[in-house]
C-alpha cells in the first residue's frame, strides 16, 4: 500500500437531541424565558481513530444509530467535527443513501452538470462525460426527464453512474446500491472492483455482511459512537454478529 487515503484521529461529534423542537423565533423567546432545558447532548462519535489505506476497500458496520452516517458526513466535510482531525488525500465522492444530492425538480442532465460543477469540474469536462454517464446508468432516453419522475432504481443508477464517471480517488458508498435491480447491482459491483483494481479507495457502509466479507480488505465495527473492533473483515463481522447474540 502506498500511503493513506483517509486518516481520522480522535474524532468526536455531539448532536443536540431535542425534547421539544423550537423552530420559530416566537417559541425560542418563550422558551428562553421558561429556561427549561429543551435538549441534551448525544455523543454520536466518541474518540474515533482509524485510517484507510490507498487502494483499500474499507467496510464500516454497526447498528442503526451507531454513528456510521455521521462519520461519513464528517469525512465528506458536510458536518464539522467538535474534536479531532480528518485528513483526506484525493478527490472524495460521497454517495450517500439518498444519492448525490440531486434536486428532484431538475432534469437528469441539469443535475449531473450541477454536480460536476459542485465538484469543481469545468462545464466542458462534464458535458464530455454526460453521454457516458447516461449510458452506464441505462438512462439515455431520460436525460431530459425531471428526477421527480424517476423511480428509486433509476435515481440510484444515475447517482452511482455519475459518481463513477467523475473519477474520484476515494468513493464513499452508504447503502446506495440497494435500490438497483440485480443486473445493475452486478454491474455496480463490477465497476467497484475495477475501480479498486485501479488503486482507488472505497469506503462502504452496509448492513449486508456478504459484500463486507467478500470484498473488503478491512472493516470497523462501530457501536454507540466508539470503535468496537477493527481489522480483518471476517473477524469484525463475527464480533458484530456476536454482539447481537449477546443482547
Amino acid at each position, binding site marked *: 500500500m502506498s500511503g493513506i487515503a483517509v486518516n481520522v484521529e480522535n474524532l468526536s461529534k455531539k448532536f443536540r437531541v431535542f425534547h421539544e423542537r423550537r423552530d*420559530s423565533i416566537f417559541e425560542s423567546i418563550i422558551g428562553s424565558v421558561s429556561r427549561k432545558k429543551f435538549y441534551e447532548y448525544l455523543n454520536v462519535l466518541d474518540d474515533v481513530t482509524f485510517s484507510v489505506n490507498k487502494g483499500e476497500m474499507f467496510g464500516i458496520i454497526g447498528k442503526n444509530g451507531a454513528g456510521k452516517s455521521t462519520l461519513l458526513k464528517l469525512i465528506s466535510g*458536510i458536518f*464539522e467535527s467538535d474534536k479531532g482531525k480528518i485528513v483526506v488525500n484525493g478527490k472524495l465522492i460521497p454517495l450517500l443513501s439518498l444519492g448525490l444530492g440531486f434536486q428532484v425538480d431538475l432534469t437528469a442532465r441539469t443535475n449531473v452538470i450541477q454536480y460536476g460543477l459542485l465538484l469543481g469540474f469545468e462545464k466542458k469536462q462534464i458535458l464530455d462525460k454526460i453521454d457516458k454517464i447516461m449510458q452506464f446508468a441505462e438512462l439515455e432516453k431520460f436525460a431530459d426527464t425531471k428526477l421527480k419522475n424517476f423511480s428509486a432504481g433509476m435515481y440510484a443508477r444515475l447517482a452511482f453512474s455519475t459518481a463513477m464517471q467523475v473519477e474520484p480517488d476515494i468513493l464513499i458508498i452508504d447503502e446506495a446500491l440497494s435500490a438497483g435491480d440485480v443486473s445493475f447491482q452486478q454491474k455496480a459491483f463490477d465497476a467497484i472492483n475495477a475501480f479498486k483494481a485501479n488503486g482507488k479507495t472505497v469506503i462502504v457502509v452496509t448492513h449486508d455482511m456478504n459484500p463486507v466479507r467478500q470484498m473488503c480488505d478491512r472493516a470497523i465495527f462501530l457501536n454507540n459512537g466508539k470503535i468496537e473492533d477493527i481489522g480483518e473483515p471476517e473477524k469484525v463481522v463475527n464480533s458484530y454478529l456476536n454482539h447481537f447474540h449477546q443482547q
Partner: protein
Amino acid sequence: MTIRELWRKRTLISNFAITDLRIRYRNSIIGFFWTFLEPLLMLTVLYFVFTNIFETNIENFPLYILLGIIMYNMFSKGTIFGLNSMIARSTVLTHIYFPREIPAISGSITSFIMTVFELIIFGIFMMIFQFIPTETILVLPLIIALEFILIVGLSLPLSLFSIRYRDIQFIWTILIQIGFFLTPIFYKSDILPEFLQEILSYSPIFQIVNMAHDVTLYNTLPEIESVLKTVIVTGIIFGIGYGIFKKYQAKIIEEL
C-alpha cells in the same frame, strides 16, 4: 470565502442563479420571454394604477414610480430568494460540501439578472415618454452594485437562520411590505415628517432608491453625506451578516 475562491466558483454560482431562473419560468410556452414579459406587464399595470389614483406634482412621475419599483423589487426579491436559497437546496447541502455562501450569493444574482431585464423594459418606457437621461445616469450601476452588496449581506444570515427558525420568512415578508411604504417609491422623501426623514436616512434601501431617482431622472448627483451614510450602514450590515453567518453556519447546516 475569499474573493478569489468566489471567482473560482463563478461557474457554479451562475449555474445556480440561472437554474433558479429556469425553474421560475419552467413549462411556460414562451419560456425565456417571460423574463421580459413579466416586468413589462407588471410595470404597465402599476403605471396605470398609480398615475390614475395619485395626484402628484412629481416630475416624470411614471418613470419615477417605475424606477422606484424596480430598485425596490431587486431588494425584496433578492433577499427573499436568499432567504429560501438554502432550504431549497437542502438535498445538495446535505450530500456534498461546497462553500455555504454560494446559495445566498446566487440568489442575489438571480434578482440582479431579473433587475437587468426590468431596466431594459424601463429603457423602453423612457423612449415612450421621450425622456433623455443626462450623464449622471452613469452612476446608476454603482448604486446597483451597492444594493447588491446590501442584498448579499442580508441574504447570508437570512438563508441560514431561516433553516432554524421557519417563521423568519413570514416576518421578513412583512418587513419587506412595510419597507415598501417607508421607501420613496410613489412619493418624494420630502413629504415625510422631518424626524422620519432623519431616521430613514440611515436605511440604505431608502437612500439607494432616492439616489437612483436623482441620477436617472433629475440630473443630480447624490450628496456626499447620503453616500457616506449608505456605504457605512451597508458595510456594517454586510460585516455583521457575514460574521454571524460564519459563526453559526456549521451548526445550523446540521439541522437541515
